């Protein structure tokens, strides 16, 4: 299995690592039993994702997709952020090995959950 240069770059130097204290939205997906788990926290200002951080337990692909999605959505409106698909992530990473494609699901799901959480809080 060989990863693209972009995957390896994001794996080696992951962007936006960490957890936002008192985040506006938090998304947790995956399960350590399955070998993949991800937490995304977002800060939202004026409907725009002003900050985003991730923590990931998983393989290089899981880490790189997490890192990539944070880069892709930072600065986007909530609506535009939701338009980012797993295919966008994979494309931006220069592809993923077939058996690793499920990792891109995970990252997209985590973002969606964080946004859902944000909206829920907003509506309370």
């Amino acid at each position: 299995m060989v990863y693209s240069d972009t995957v390896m770059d994001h794996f080696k130097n992951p962007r936006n690592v960490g957890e936002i204290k008192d985040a506006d939205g938090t998304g947790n997906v995956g399960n350590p039993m399955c070998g993949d788990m991800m937490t995304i926290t977002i800060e939202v200002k004026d409907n725009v994702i002003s900050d985003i951080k991730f923590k990931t337990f998983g393989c290089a692909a899981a880490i790189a997709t997490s890192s990539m999605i944070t880069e892709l959505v930072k600065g986007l409106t909530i609506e535009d952020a939701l338009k980012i698909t797993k295919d966008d992530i994979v494309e931006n990473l220069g592809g993923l090995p077939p058996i690793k494609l499920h990792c891109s699901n995970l990252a997209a799901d985590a973002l969606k959950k964080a946004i859902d959480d944000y909206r829920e809080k907003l509506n309370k």
Partner: protein
Amino acid sequence: MIMVKKSVYLDNSASTRVLDEVVSAMIPYFTEIYGNPSSLHSFGIKAKKALDDSRKIVANSINANPEEIIFTSGGTESDNIAVFGVAAARKDGRIITTKIEHPAIKNTVQKLKTQGFEVLFIDVDYEGFINIKQLEESINADTILVSIIHANNEIGTIQDIETIGNIIKTKNPNTYFHVDAVQSYMKLPIDVVSAKIDLLSIASHKIHGPKGVGALYIRNGVKLKSLQLGGSHEKNLRAGTENVPGIVGFAKAVELNLVDLEEYTKNLVFLRDRLIDGIEKRIPHVILNGPRGVSRNSNNVNISFKHIEGESILLYLDMQGIAVSTGSACSSTSLKPSHVLEAIGLPVEICHGSIRFTLSRYTTKEEIDYVLEVFPKIIAKLRALSPLNAN
């Protein structure tokens, strides 16, 4: 400043560097003595003699007779001939093996299960030792084969094959005893007579010989059907033109290993324990898989790092020039956690963070110390990334 990239190979249970003397021994068989050993002319006779000489060397190394050794294309083929060959000769019955076999045994016996054979997998304890009592009770009059992995390829646990051989033959002298010695050969002494072994698999590329060569010991009198059919090679048990240079290289590797076996085993054990101790001292939340001390294969270290995933560790180590494996090389492209780690009761989420280091006669103290130097930083970096760490 010019950076010399280090290159520390610690994946010797996956495959080993071929010894220079082995390469030299093979070369004449590529370009001078290239005859087919079945041919009657002098080119063929010389090739045949090389085969015979190699057979003697391999036979001697396990206290067997030369005619009890057939050469194969590797450990997997040896395992397949043993299991499928006995099954084909006996037609039905019970086959007993363990929960921690290499896929070459695991998948063959599972296939036989679908063909109507009764297959039992013996449990192992948390260090990977098989439940001897369960084994003993499982051997009945119908039991045609017991297949046991000698030194486990993932966690290094060494089974007591002398005791097992005696138990098998006491319970049922007609039960064949197969030992998968691919990982123990040239690391542990093996005596097929005293351990009452009927069949034993070994592979060249795990002992600094070439890839694509293995051998199967078949005790005189053992009934076995051949799988691969064709010309009458290897006592009609394995058709196909013999890989003469490969076999010569295999035998040469055996010879060279035997020269200083005790010495370098001692050194391996020293380095192995230095690595284990060093990691345990420097890195928190780690679990050593497999036993400590004399019952652990001399070249094996298998450690689980909580909260992080094995592939990430492997790739970060690779960037530092250190080659290791997650579980066994064979399963490293699949996503399922290792069946061996599951069998010793390691929680699944911890299985995912397991790394196997396997040393060789080429491994140095400096290399181990280099690993111990860079490793804590890598683990710290990955744990900082992990959402599990905080818990």
